[in-house]
């Protein structure tokens, strides 16, 4: 008898013959949910520093390769201690934003309870993401949850469309996971080094990553949002222009394209 998990819950082939998958098929085939995102946001990058966390994402929502919407705010402030950064599908982000809004309203019915912190929110969102992927109906996002935990210490963690969670002193989603993460790890290689990083250093580091991403990620743009979360609250700027950036060097590149010489 076949004890492999693949055979669990199915009639035995040796008795009933080969399994007929058609039993589960409707005329239109099996039910299908989201197979791919539609309007998407690219990388979110974030880094811890000694008093808090800095997080950034650009303001572009792409429709495939088309730069469709250029004023999309992908950093959402939850309360005075948490900001959530969204990579991936924008409509799923809007759904999650409304979900968090209703959660916040319910949380504030009582004035006496402590507000939800970043750690609570990460746990909640990770469960939402995992539930949806278990329903084969994932929310096509990669989230970074940045803020302070219950002890007012910097907190940074991610949850993705599969419900996978991960935490690190620096995090980046999408293209940034390849391009920004190594840059940030040079300055903040581990948890111990966080205490030596000032807010100014962390902001500079993240801004540098945004520049590298703009140069190399074709789904990015030069206008972005950046937020810092400390005990003093959330400082969110949703209209930052990339600085010291120029394509002038492109003229020097030889070897492909339309140049004649």
């Amino acid at each position, binding site marked *: 008898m076949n004890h492999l998990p693949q055979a669990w819950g199915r009639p035995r082939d040796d008795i009933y013959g080969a399994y007929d998958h058609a039993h589960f098929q409707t005329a239109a085939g099996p039910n299908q949910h989201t197979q791919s995102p539609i309007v998407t946001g690219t990388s979110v990058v974030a880094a811890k520093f000694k008093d808090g966390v800095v997080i950034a994402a650009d303001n572009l929502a792409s429709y495939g390769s088309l730069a469709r919407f250029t004023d999309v705010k992908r950093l959402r402030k939850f309360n005075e201690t948490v900001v959530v950064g969204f990579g991936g599908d924008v409509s799923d982000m809007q759904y999650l934003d409304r979900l968090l809004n*209703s959660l916040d309203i319910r949380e*504030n019915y009582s004035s006496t309870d402590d507000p939800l912190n970043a750690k609570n929110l990460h746990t909640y969102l990770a469960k939402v993401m995992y539930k949806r992927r278990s329903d084969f109906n994932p929310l096509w996002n990669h989230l970074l949850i940045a803020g302070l935990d219950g002890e007012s210490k910097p907190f940074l963690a991610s949850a993705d469309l599969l419900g996978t969670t991960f935490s690190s002193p620096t995090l980046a989603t999408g293209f940034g996971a390849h391009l920004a993460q190594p840059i940030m790890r040079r300055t903040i290689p581990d948890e111990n080094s966080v205490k030596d990083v000032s807010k100014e250093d962390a902001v500079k580091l993240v801004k540098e990553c945004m520049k590298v991403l703009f140069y190399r990620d074709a789904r990015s743009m030069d206008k972005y949002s950046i937020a810092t979360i400390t005990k003093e609250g959330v400082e969110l700027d949703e209209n930052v222009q990339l600085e010291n950036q120029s394509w002038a060097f492109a003229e020097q590149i030889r070897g492909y394209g339309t140049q004649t010489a």
Partner: protein
Amino acid sequence: MTSIGTGYDLSNSVFSPDGRNFQVEYAVKAVENGGTAIGIRCKDGIVLALEKLVTSKLLKSGANKRIATVDRNMGIVSSGLLPDGRHFVSRARDEASSWRNLYKAPIPTSSLADRMGSYVQAYTLYSSVRPFGVTAIIGGWDSEAELPVDGQVGAGPGVGSGGKKDGAKHGGPYLYMIEPSGLYWGYYGAATGKGRQIAKSELEKLNLSEGELTLEEGVKEAARIIYIAHDDNKDKEFELEMTWISSTTGPTKGRHEDVPKELREEAERLAKKALEGDDEDEEEEKMQE
């Protein structure tokens, strides 16, 4: 009551020959035994205040809040049967949440009052239920600012259609009171419960319709009115519970919140002083006689 023995008070939804619904009237009686609750519509916000009668020394002071928040910008205080009040609040929260689900924006206070009025009224129509044993005061601040639609990520086109009218004013403070019959009106100042008569006459003296009373003055007046309306002879102990809602530029930023401890204690101190002042005047008058 004259109805005793006539049989028209035994079932809900049944009229008496002279056109009364006795079950609703009995519900009003239940409200008249509750602690006094008031609401004041000020120039720049709403104050809700409650005389919370302490039924046992074993209850923690300051706990067991009775004024509830609905959505972020509205508060409900009720007088009468406590469990009925809590169900009323629960329903109001569901209404506010389903409104958001449908319209992606907060429910206007007037719409919430309308829906809750209809809900309460429905409990006077069927023999299988009884009317609500509460009169509830709903206060809210409808945002005067241009609110983003829930989940909105961008500003959209800066020009073109949208039907926005220049200089159009909207939002502001709103106050409604819903009775067990489902009847509701909008008020400048509302009072219910045991001390409602005294409270109403005090509210009338404030000339609220002129719209000059500020929120901070409103807080102090509300505390004073609750203290005046309290009957020392019948109920010894009570706690003053007060919440407020200011404009989006005011102290609560358009949210329904507890009045801060310092301000509440200051208001209570002034209220007690005003009471003592009255007593002294009376004593002086007696002396002169």
